[in-house]
């Protein structure tokens, strides 16, 4: 029939190569609702709770007046920054090796080493660490057996033990984030730089590092944010005289029944963490971030 070219209008909509604008938000709706229920509402509740009835700043002044809380905040940030720095250095080496290695054995060994602490329970991980670190532990015995050292070393209940414990827990997170970041970098760039006369170190530092900067920053942010909230490790491996803020928050809730004080401590912790992250972004430079992202 000659009239068959007439479109069957009304029955089918015209196919469009792009999805309509509303489909994105709609598909993300379950996630948005979850985030609202489990993240936004509790956080807002915590901030409101920290002011008590009306606009009562007493919990904040109490926090600032308390030497213990100020010290705990400093310890939390100091240890978390050390953990972040160590995790990024060690993690970058491991992640870059995972990126470039052609050896299946090395890859398997590295992934296993990453996966084991990642999959272990928190208490088991820390208990294992306490066996390693205690005065009669493995580390101390090795130290004793070395020819150029003397006596035992005892790391348990010290800030060093806390840093080691948190590092052990968070290194897998760092490595996985870094592997993802490094996967977008062509390893051939190293060879290209070397062919132009750069040493291997120079090539890695001035070619790969800037390209990886956003990924490294993201991994660092992840590690830092996870680290400042640590509770079990400081309790099990650290001493009562150098607690993390999370430990004091626990005491505020369960021993002193001070929910307002605990909310204020939590708010201060989060605000301080955001300040640190913004500072980190400034150090890396927004321009470099934008360039690397695009």
């Amino acid at each position, binding site marked *: 029939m000659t009239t068959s070219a007439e479109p069957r209008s009304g029955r089918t909509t015209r196919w469009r190569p792009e999805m309509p604008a509303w489909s994105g938000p709609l598909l993300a709706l379950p996630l948005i609702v979850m985030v609202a229920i489990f993240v936004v509402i509790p956080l807002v509740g915590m901030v409101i709770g920290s002011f008590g009835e009306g606009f*009562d700043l007493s919990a904040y002044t109490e926090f600032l007046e308390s030497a213990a809380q100020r010290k705990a905040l400093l310890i939390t940030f100091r240890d978390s920054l050390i953990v972040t720095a160590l995790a990024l250095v060690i993690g970058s080496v491991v992640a870059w090796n995972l990126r470039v290695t052609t050896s299946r054995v090395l890859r398997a060994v590295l992934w296993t080493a990453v996966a084991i602490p990642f999959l272990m329970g928190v208490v088991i991980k820390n208990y294992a660490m306490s066996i390693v670190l205690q005065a009669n532990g493995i580390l101390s015995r090795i130290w004793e057996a070395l020819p150029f050292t003397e006596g035992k070393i005892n790391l348990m209940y010290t800030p060093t033990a806390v840093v080691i414990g948190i590092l052990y827990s968070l290194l897998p997170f760092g490595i996985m984030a870094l592997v993802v970041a490094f996967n977008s970098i062509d390893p051939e760039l190293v060879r290209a730089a070397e062919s132009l006369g750069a040493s291997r170190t120079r090539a890695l530092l001035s070619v790969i590092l800037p390209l990886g900067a956003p990924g490294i920053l993201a991994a660092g942010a992840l590690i830092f944010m996870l680290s400042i909230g640590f509770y079990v490790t400081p309790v099990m491996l650290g*001493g009562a005289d150098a607690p993390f803020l999370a430990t004091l928050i626990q005491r505020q809730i369960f021993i002193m029944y001070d929910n*307002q004080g605990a909310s204020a401590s939590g708010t201060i912790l989060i605000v301080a963490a955001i300040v640190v992250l913004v500072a980190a972004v400034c150090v890396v430079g927004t321009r470099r971030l934008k360039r690397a992202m695009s």
Partner: protein
Amino acid sequence: MVTAQRRGRRFAQITAVGAFTVALLAGCAGGGSDTKPTEDGKLGGNVIVGGWGGRFTESTTKFLTDPFTKETGVTVQFVDAPGEQVARLAAMTKAGKIEWDAVDSLDPSNAFSAYVGGYAAKMPDDVRKRLEKYVPAEQLTDFGMTYSANAFVTGCNTSMVKACPTNPAEFFDLKNFPGDRAIIDRPFIALTYALEADGVKPDEMFPMDLDRAFAKLETIKDSVKVWYSAGDQMEQIVRDEQVAMGLLWSGRAYNVQDQGTDLQISWDGGIYEPGQWFVVEGAKNPDAAWALIESIAANPKGQAEWATAMSYGISNPEAFDYMDEKIASRLPDWPANFETSIVPDFTWYAENREEIEKRWTEFVSG
């Protein structure tokens, strides 16, 4: 400082959290059998006990409550709530639905808080009279029967130091008794110990002179290498010689001694922690619950077997006759140990808990 207004609100918040918890728990606890006593005044029904769970509840069931059930026909059901007994009681009271009739062996810091908070029933006079037949009067508090007592003692590793302190005063004497120390991360126990060392007599100790106690603790603070919080941790630091001496949990200290550490244990100035069996205020079956406590008091053989299994204190001194002397002489209630120990005023602690804990945090972590 915390204002009274804030404190009130805080309490409301806790109870609100508690009420929510109870709403969750109500589902689990439902389906219990009839808990009312029978009509003719005879005991009957079911007694629900808030307990510690695990091996503790197993031993209590086997040696103390099963004989009671056999004798009276009243069944006893345990609900595990280790460490959160008071929080649960607060929640039940708030919700107006009391699920428990009694609480098993609650440590005094919590038990006296429960009493001060109004969650524990006052002991009726007739019950007290009957209990006094089996239990020494000083083992009965206004609301409960002291049972499962714990104690803190002065322990010292004789292979690590030349001179070992044998009492609180010597423990605080750094000049004559040098060495690294460990003290429990529990303010009320540590402060009591400090005042003992400072020469305060037990009958003059409460209300406590907190300034004096903290000042005394300050004198040895630098030598305290570990403020331990868990029993495991205490055993490990003593066994691995991380500290030479400490204010130690008695049962744990004997454990370490049995494992081969040259630990000297002194009961002079020991601190007695009276755990409490008590009946819950507003319980559905209080008569049977009191009868259960009386039955435990009147069962020295069961107590002896229980203490042998658990290494905690007993309430009926006759129980010592059924026990191995080695085990008996290690218990906080053993006359020689009890006589030289001090029983702190936990009611005073419960009333001043917040201030004590706040100052403690500043002292240890500040």
